[in-house]
């Protein structure tokens, strides 16, 4: 492996500073929110109290840590679903739809095998979710490769399509009788139940395996070399005899598989598929991928950070009376700073490198001619 220690440090600096800046900006919001809250006073220490209880809630005890890991698990996968795509020059905004597809497929398989052994039911349902997600990813990949339709546009449209179609199916064809709201039948033995009195479940292992696996794929295999080459310079990839179209379709399918697995895990954890499945893990994957700089291990760390905020938020609300929604605010601000990397570099007077890699994928003009 090529070691580039200096560039690694460079890649960590901007995400770290973005988090710092986001926490600072959020502090101001927390202080102001105290002003309009029940006590109507300015408490300059409130942010510190809030962040402290957030930390304690997430890492203070074994249960908290377990909650953090469980919250981080789907984020790792959706982070990969976006991050691996970025490596191939594709901006997959469709993780949301791929999550729903994977989750729905897993719930149907779970219902079918609700009395099979969990050792069979769970892996089959998870695998089915992955495959369904891969299909949902393949479609925009195919459209991009053969018609030039931009994946940002097609995945956004597919998100809406999948959401409405699946919820329609659950409301109608697959609605289980005997419940007050529209949902599928329970997945029975395929449910991912917590072990050892915590929320930790079997699906965590699947997610954790995907991290080194995708690192190996991207950096140690010829397939990954093709993915990165197509992302960095599609015309050169074509010249070198690679097949950019095929690589794009493969990558989008892979991204969909990761997101599908995330959805399957979340649904099997819940035990059924609700008609209104409002999960933000698909979009959170964008933040995770950018924060992790599309590096699988970076994605793992980012997912744990965001998962910790989710897991610690309830305690923060109790102790500091800061609403849990502040987590969405922090996450949003992090994303803004990451996307506006130039701003962060200006604030901290960092050298501005040429726009390359992932950021280029996002800021690149739409409607470019697809090569191949």
């Amino acid at each position, binding site marked *: *492996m*090529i*070691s*580039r220690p200096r560039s690694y440090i460079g890649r960590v600096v901007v995400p770290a500073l973005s988090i710092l800046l986001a926490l600072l900006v959020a502090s101001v919001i927390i202080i102001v929110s105290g002003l309009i809250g029940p006590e109507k006073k300015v408490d300059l220490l409130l942010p510190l109290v809030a962040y402290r209880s957030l930390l304690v809630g997430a890492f203070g005890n074994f249960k908290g840590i377990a909650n953090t890991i469980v919250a981080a698990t789907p984020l790792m996968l959706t982070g990969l679903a976006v991050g691996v795509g970025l490596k191939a020059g594709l901006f997959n905004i469709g993780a949301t739809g791929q999550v729903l597809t994977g989750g729905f497929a897993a719930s149907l398989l779970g219902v079918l095998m609700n009395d099979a052994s969990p050792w069979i039911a769970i892996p089959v349902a998870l695998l089915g979710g992955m495959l369904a997600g891969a299909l949902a990813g393949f479609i925009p990949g195919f459209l991009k490769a053969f018609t030039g339709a931009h994946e940002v546009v097609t995945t956004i449209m597919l998100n809406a399509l999948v959401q409405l179609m699946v919820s329609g199916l659950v409301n109608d064809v697959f609605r289980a009788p005997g419940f007050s709201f529209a949902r599928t039948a329970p997945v029975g033995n395929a449910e991912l139940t917590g072990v050892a009195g915590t929320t930790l479940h079997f699906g965590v292992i699947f997610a954790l395996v995907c991290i080194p696996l995708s690192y190996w794929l991207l950096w*140690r*295999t*010829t*397939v990954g*070399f093709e993915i*990165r*080459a197509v992302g*960095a*310079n599609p*015309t*050169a*990839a*074509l*010249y*070198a*005899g*690679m097949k950019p179209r095929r690589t794009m379709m493969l990558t989008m399918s892979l991204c969909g598989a990761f997101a599908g697995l995330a959805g399957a895990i979340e649904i099997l954890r819940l035990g059924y598929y609700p008609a209104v499945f409002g999960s933000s893990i698909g979009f959170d994957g964008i933040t995770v991928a950018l924060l992790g700089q599309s590096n699988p291990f970076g994605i793992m760390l980012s997912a744990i950070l965001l998962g910790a905020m989710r897991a610690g938020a309830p305690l923060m609300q109790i102790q500091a009376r800061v609403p849990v929604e502040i987590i969405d605010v922090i996450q949003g601000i992090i994303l803004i700073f990451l996307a506006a990397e130039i701003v962060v570099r200006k604030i901290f007077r960092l050298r501005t490198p*040429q726009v*390359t*890699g992932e950021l280029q994928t996002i800021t690149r003009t739409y409607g470019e001619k697809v090569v191949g």
Partner: protein
Amino acid sequence: MSVAQPPPPRLQMRGITKRYPGVIANNQIDLDVKAGEIHALLGENGAGKTTLMNVLFGLARPDEGEILLDGEPVQIADPADAIARGIGMVHQHFMLIPVLTVAENILLGAETMANPIFLDRREARRRIIELGKRFGFEIDPDARVESLSVGWQQRVEILKALYRQARILVLDEPTAVLTPQETVEVFAVLRRLAAEGHSIIFISHKLYEVLEIADRITVIRRGEVVGTRQPSQTDEDDLAELMVGREVQLAVERGTSHPAEPVLTVENLKVRSDRGQEVVRGVSFSVRAGEILGIAGVAGNGQDELIEAITGLRRSAGGAVSLAGQNITSWSVRERREHGLGYVPGDRQKYGLVLGFPISDNLVLTQYYNRPFARGIQREDAAIEKWARDRIEQFDIRTPSWASAAGTLSGGNQQKVIVAREFSRDLKALVLDQPTRGLDVGSIEFIHKQAIRKRDDGTGILLVSAELDEILELSDRIAVMYRGEIVALVDGRPTANKEEIGLLMATGGRAPTEQPPNGGTSGQAGTAMDMPVKGAKS
């Protein structure tokens, strides 16, 4: 004080020093240009010519030194200031808006107003026509820039500067994009400008041109002036040595070729452009093992599409390509490569390299999936590294490390990476597209030597270049491509005649007034030499 003191030079740059982190781009440079003088600035890429001109044009602030115009010290704040002081710049890449007319382009930024709201188009047109007449190139102010040939677009750029009353005109590598005939025409324009008292700074790294056009030549190497010469006192060898700092072999020993059987054969090949026009119109030729076949032609006469069809990047619309006796017309890029076809692309940054990747990855870009670089799908990093180290040494690629990104290399070294990758395989045929474009003398010498060596190893080489001199220097046979056809196939030097080939490139051997068959609107093949027709708005 004497009464008959000569007037001070139009421009003096004294002791200009410009430092960038880690490098001194300009070190105590002195340059003076008289009124009516054509002063050439000669130097390799990265020698500091551009930095010096950026200082002059207000794009960079010198750390030390001063600029005097007509003996008066001035501070040039920005390009607008430079223009106001009568300095005009003609960049190598034109700063023109293709869909606007000549007049509109010239007016842009220097609007002649009839009143505060409306342009005075009539007055502007009158001035443009008058300027054109004065300097010997009548141009239609209403012609759209995109309908003009490259040579005429350049004249629009010159007009732009003159319209802004430039007295000092800087031309950055003005001939790089021109045919020999166009170069002659532009030189005539420049001489006329000088005769009218304009000062011209002519930036180039083409030695013979500088000798032909300049009144004085200042040579820059590594940010310093290493000499100033008059053309009568010097020659190409002397200038090359000054420029590079060592003796340079300007023309490689081509030796005699020993051509054997045909390895790359093209039969009645037809290829369409992106816009669906047939831009390669039934081309046939054969490259034999152990020879270099050069394709001369003005850029845009179908060479790009021809090469893409041969290498598999573009489908052909008819005809056949065969490699070592096998018909490869419908083969993929990879199949062709594996069958022994090498390719050095014309656009090295777009096609040849992944700039963000390490040099090592770029050196295996076409073979990464083969042993020893991969076993199954797993990459063998040790083998890749070893290969990279060997290539870097053998091809003298100047880099701190094999792991440095290709984008950090100079143009010459980037090209060496590509050459190292393509030349280090057993090839039957090799396509070289503009292999030395934009490179300095030292790199050109190196790449030419490698090409000759590859030829002598028995590879059939197809060389495509817009540089007629490069074609003449390397080719054993020369084909001239004009508007999608091979209009002539002649033996190389010593029988080849430069003027004759130049004429064929420009006219295809027909009367130069003949109308192009496709109406001349494509901007691709066919328009390169067309004069702007009055009222042609396409």
